Each structure stands twice: as C-alpha cells, then as structure tokens.
C-alpha cells in the first residue's frame, strides 16, 4: 500500500472522494487537521491551506469544508477499525500510530480517574493526522564524526520542536544497524515510547530502522531501556526526547554496562541542553545541534569538550 492509500484508508468511503485530490501530492503533505465545526486544514510544506468540499486547496477559509461531529466519529471509527476498545491505551495517550507509521492525534472530552489521571477520551472532536516522512540518508554527513577509534560515541541530538531530530535519529539508527561500507552494522535496540521513531503498527516498524534493530514499542523509556538491556543485549540503545531525571538515571545505567546511547532532547542551544542534563552532561561524547531556519536545516556537531567538529547543511 502506498503512502497515498495509507492515508486514504483512514477516511470512510463517503469522505475518500474529498481527500483524493489533496493526497495526490502526499509527498509534500505534513498534516491534516480536522475539528468539529471548523474548516478542514491542510499543512503542506509548512504552509496552511483550507480544503474545499470538492477536495481543492484554498488559501482563504471561505467555502472550506466544515466538518461535522458525525464525520469525525466516522473517521475515528474507520481509523480504529470499528474497534475503539482495542485502542483504549492509545486513545488515553491521545495518539495512535497507523499503518505506514503515520500518527493520528486525538482531542475531545477527557474522562478522569478518581486520582485525577486520564482514564480515556470520549467525544473525540479534533484530529490531527501527521504524515510520516522518512529522509533516508539524512545522517550521511553526520555519521563519520560520531565514531572515535571505530567506537560510536554516546550522542545527543538537540533541537527545538519540528526541526527533524527524530528523523535524524531514525536515519542514524538505520545506518548504525545496517552498517556502511566503512563500518560493520551493530545490534541496536530502540525504546519507542511514542511510536515516532519506528512508527510501529501492530508491533511492526513501518519506518526503516535497520536490519539489526529491535524495537520496543509504546513502552516507557526507563523501563524499556532496562528491559532491552536484559533481554536483547544491544550494542547501542536509542531513545527519543529524554529530559526527566529518571531518563538520565536509566541512561547512566545503560552507559555503565558499556552500551552506546543515541538520544534526542528538546533544546535551543548547547547551554540549554547542558542545563537540562545537569550531572549527566559527561554522559555524551557528541552533541548534534539541529536548527531549521528559512526552510533550511543545518547541523553543528560538538565533541565532549564542546569543540565544534563540523557545521553542515542537511
């Protein structure tokens, strides 16, 4: 099934016709945002458009397709294969990964437990369909600098949201796992708490993460790292969006065992990341700072002494 059909299959028969024209250009599509009584919005190459009832992209909201509650319910049913109960945990988390690794975010009325934690979502009224785009080869120019004496240095990718740190991490995982002409592949384990790295659907990675990669999907990072260390004996462990003290403590334990680490963190600068890392800042031997300005992505690579090793456009 191609990407176009994967997205199209999320919509019930009655709405497929509206989505078809816009999905012809699925390669440049980032998001489809749907909300009850709101115009359907399409985010394409970072720009927002409105969708007409005939499936045409409009720059103005006048004449845009206003979505009804019934249409949202039909789409949710379609996404969940008429089996909402089977996706209870995913709905509680607020998102679901579908075939192809695309993610559907949900919002609506929250049902709480007596202790105030989220029990589930009812009256789902807003959807955000994020189309997964892999960039194979994104890590080509970066990878050689991450090795020292043929050993992968623990690496932290730092960037603000939306700059592509998960995309870069995914390609790093793939290349470390598959190996390159210069280096042999290594056993990699991924703790994919939010199903963003491998984009697993029914436990099967939908994105290319390499032939020597084991994926633990939808598992909390700290538990996942320990579990994988015990069960899969990886040479490298990869995790997305670290930040809490528990994450850092678990990473320390992983590093003590001699396993390499590939991780990402939200941050705007090296200093920002250092502040968040606290005592764990010596854990990493390489820091990759990603920025995205004027539609151009660039990366700076620093070593453990914070010396700039390379600055390159991606």
């Amino acid at each position: 099934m191609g990407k176009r059909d994967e997205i199209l299959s999320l919509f019930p028969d009655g709405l497929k016709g509206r989505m078809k024209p816009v999905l012809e250009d699925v390669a440049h599509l980032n998001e489809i945002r749907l909300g009850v009584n709101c115009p359907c919005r399409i985010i394409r190459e970072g720009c927002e458009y409105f969708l007409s009832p005939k499936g045409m992209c409009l720059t103005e909201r006048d004449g845009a397709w206003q979505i009804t509650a019934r249409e949202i319910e039909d789409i949710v049913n379609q996404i969940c294969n008429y089996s909402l109960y089977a996706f209870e945990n995913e709905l509680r988390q607020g998102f679901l990964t579908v075939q192809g690794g695309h993610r559907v975010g949900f919002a609506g009325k929250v049902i709480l437990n007596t202790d105030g934690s989220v029990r589930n979502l009812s009256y789902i009224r807003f959807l955000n369909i994020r189309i997964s785009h892999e960039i194979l080869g994104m890590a080509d120019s970066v990878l050689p600098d991450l090795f020292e004496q043929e050993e992968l240095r623990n690496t932290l990718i730092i960037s603000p949201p939306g700059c592509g740190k998960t995309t870069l991490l995914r390609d790093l995982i793939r290349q470390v796992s598959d190996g390159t002409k210069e280096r042999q592949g290594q056993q990699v384990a991924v703790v994919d708490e939010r199903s963003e790295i491998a984009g697993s659907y029914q436990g099967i990675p939908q994105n290319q993460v390499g032939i020597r990669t084991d994926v633990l999907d939808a598992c909390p990072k700290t538990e996942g790292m320990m579990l994988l260390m015990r069960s899969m004996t990886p040479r490298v462990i990869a995790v997305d969006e670290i930040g809490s003290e528990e994450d850092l403590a678990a990473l320390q334990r992983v590093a003590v065992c001699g396993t390499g680490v590939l991780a990402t963190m939200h941050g705007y600068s090296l200093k920002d990341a250092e502040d968040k890392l606290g005592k764990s800042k010596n854990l990493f031997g390489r820091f990759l700072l990603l920025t995205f300005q004027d539609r151009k992505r660039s990366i700076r690579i620093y070593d453990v002494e914070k010396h700039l090793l390379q600055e390159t456009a991606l």
Partner: protein
Amino acid sequence: MSAVMGSLLVILGALGFSVSLCQEYRMRLALLKRIRGVYEYMEFQISYGKLPIPEILRKLSIKDELCFQQEFGRIARRMEEGQDLAVIWKEELEAPLKKSGLRQKEQEWLLAFPTKQGFLKGQAQAESLNEIRRELEEGIESLQREQKNRNKMIMSVGVAGGVLLSILFL
C-alpha cells in the same frame, strides 16, 4: 399386489417429506447455534484479547466449527482496505443468510452486528454483543421447544396424510 406397493410408496414418500421438514428445522437450529458460537468467540476476543474486529474476523475465517468463514475473511480484508463496516457486512452476509433458510428475525441477529460497535471499553463492547447473544439464546431455546412439538406433529400429519392418500388411491 401393485396397489399395496403403490400405497406403501405413497406412505414412504409422505414420511420422507416429513423427515425433510424436520431436517430443515434441525439445520436452522444448528446454524443459529453456530452464530451464537461466533458471538461467544467475539465477546471473548474483545474482553480478553482486546483484538480489533478485522483480526477477530480473520480468526473466525479459519474456524471450521463455526460458520460463514469465507464471508468473514472477505469482510476482514475489505475492512483493512478502508471500506465501511456496515456496508460490507450487509453485502457479504445478506445473500448467504437468505439462502440459509433462517427467518428474517433470525437473520437480523447476525446482520445487526455493525450497529453494536463504537464502545471505548472492551467490557462495554462485549456487553453490547452479549445483548444480541441473549436474544439469540432465547430464540434457540424457543426453536428447540417448538422443534420437539413440531417434529411430532409433522411426522404424525405426514404419516396420516400418506395413509389417507393411499386409501383414497385404493
């Protein structure tokens, strides 16, 4: 001699007709029990396995002891292609149910399945299917009672009819 043989054949024919009528009842009953089995299986897989509907249907499609295996397999495949459950359920099952000899109300017990979807909790979803299963259970019990009485009546009427016809022919 030929008159006696003819009379015997008429009586045997009437008896055969009665048996075939009784058989039709038995087959209806057997199919209803299999549909009940389908619902029991679904409830179990929903409550304990938390499996989505297409996966349950795919499992049902390889269960020989139940019914409509091919149809369930096709529905699962079409659901995964993104087609509407209510539409494909009707398209795939309406025709074989009509051929099955089940009464309209009995067919509805299986055709109503898509209207019972949409619950967030597995337990609630299974309960909603349990409602249909309870109705089905009552239907089976009443058909079983009816079958016992009807069988006796059909056999008696059949044999008596055969005897009467043979007397008339003689």
